[in-house]
């Protein structure tokens, strides 16, 4: 059963990757190109350095490269969604495949993407110092791990409370538990800001470069595009996998129509 669910998850993930690639290509690449142009401008006109040679051309990066990344990531997310779904389906009153898959998708989107990037937002090219990549990656991955721990704790709390209080109360308290964990983690983890910012006396100090500021609208567009891609990925997986899992796990259940027909024949006699 796990194998069959996993295959369905991978398929849903493949579809999600395709959609994610579509969104990335249409609304994401504009800001990536602008950010790269910003980097080129800074190197040429301010630092007077030759731009770094790239192994892979921009046209390949923004098409086949982007597509590969989106598809692999989508497939991986779909598979993991299927495994998590296999663990929760039928437990805690989650007896319907579609809502259970939607729950995994929603919680995954919030816990694995949204909560971590609220602390460490997505950054386009030209933002981020080469020598801090190790620290930034470690913090980001640790943040995701802490968020997932928070989700697990919230899940345990939810399960315990289901026996003692209403479903609504259990859900609200579980969500609050997760938020409390998140707030603690947000406070404990150090902030990271490497968005180039020229010094403005009395307002802000210089960040990474005293003479240039990264255009805020390009940054906003990039981060919104990133959010949109991740939202589309998770939503597609939740809906497509829910559809496939329902057909596998709940085949041909009696519909309201057929039930009523049976009722009429039974009482009419």
């Amino acid at each position, binding site marked *: *059963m*796990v194998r069959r669910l*996993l295959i369905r998850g991978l398929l849903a993930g493949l579809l999600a990757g395709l959609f994610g690639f579509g969104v*990335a290509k249409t609304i*994401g*690449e504009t800001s*990536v190109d602008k950010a790269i142009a910003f980097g080129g401008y800074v190197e040429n006109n301010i630092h007077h350095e030759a731009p770094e040679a*790239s*192994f*892979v051309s921009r046209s390949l*990066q*923004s098409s086949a*490269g*982007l597509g*590969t*990344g*989106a598809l*692999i*990531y989508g*497939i*991986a*997310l779909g*598979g*993991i969604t299927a*495994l998590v779904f*296999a*663990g929760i*389906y*039928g437990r805690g009153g989650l007896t*319907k495949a579609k809502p259970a898959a939607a729950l995994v998708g929603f919680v995954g989107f919030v816990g694995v*993407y949204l909560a*971590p990037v609220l602390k460490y*937002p*997505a*950054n*386009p*090219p030209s933002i*981020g*110092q080469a020598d801090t*990549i*190790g620290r*930034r*990656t*470690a913090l*980001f991955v640790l943040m995701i791990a802490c968020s997932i721990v928070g989700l697990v704790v919230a899940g345990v709390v939810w399960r315990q409370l289901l026996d003692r209080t209403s479903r609504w109360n259990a859900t609200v308290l579980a969500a609050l538990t997760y938020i409390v964990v998140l707030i603690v983690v947000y406070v404990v983890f150090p902030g990271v800001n490497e968005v180039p910012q020229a010094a403005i006396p009395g307002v802000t100090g210089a960040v990474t470069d005293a003479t240039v500021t990264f255009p805020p609208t390009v940054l906003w567009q*990039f981060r919104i*595009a*990133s959010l949109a*891609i*991740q939202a589309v990925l998770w939503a597609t997986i939740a809906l497509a996998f829910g559809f496939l899992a329902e057909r596998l*796990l*709940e085949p041909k*259940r*009696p519909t309201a129509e057929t*039930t009523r027909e*049976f*009722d009429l*024949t*039974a*009482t009419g006699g």
Partner: protein
Amino acid sequence: MSTNALVLPEAKPITISVRELLPWALFAGFLLLLLMYIVGVEQGATSLVGGNYVHEWVHDARHLLGFPCH
């Protein structure tokens, strides 16, 4: 109208046992996380295969998916 005239059996939802799920979760979970690592981190903070080609190839996806890059 009688309510208990005919009760169709509700399909009982299948619950997958931990015994059945665990090997899958460990093995497939590891491979799937490895895929995410390749897209998100490889040849950035850490490098398994060396070089820069993977990083350059998935560059745009890595940025847009929210991973730290460069």
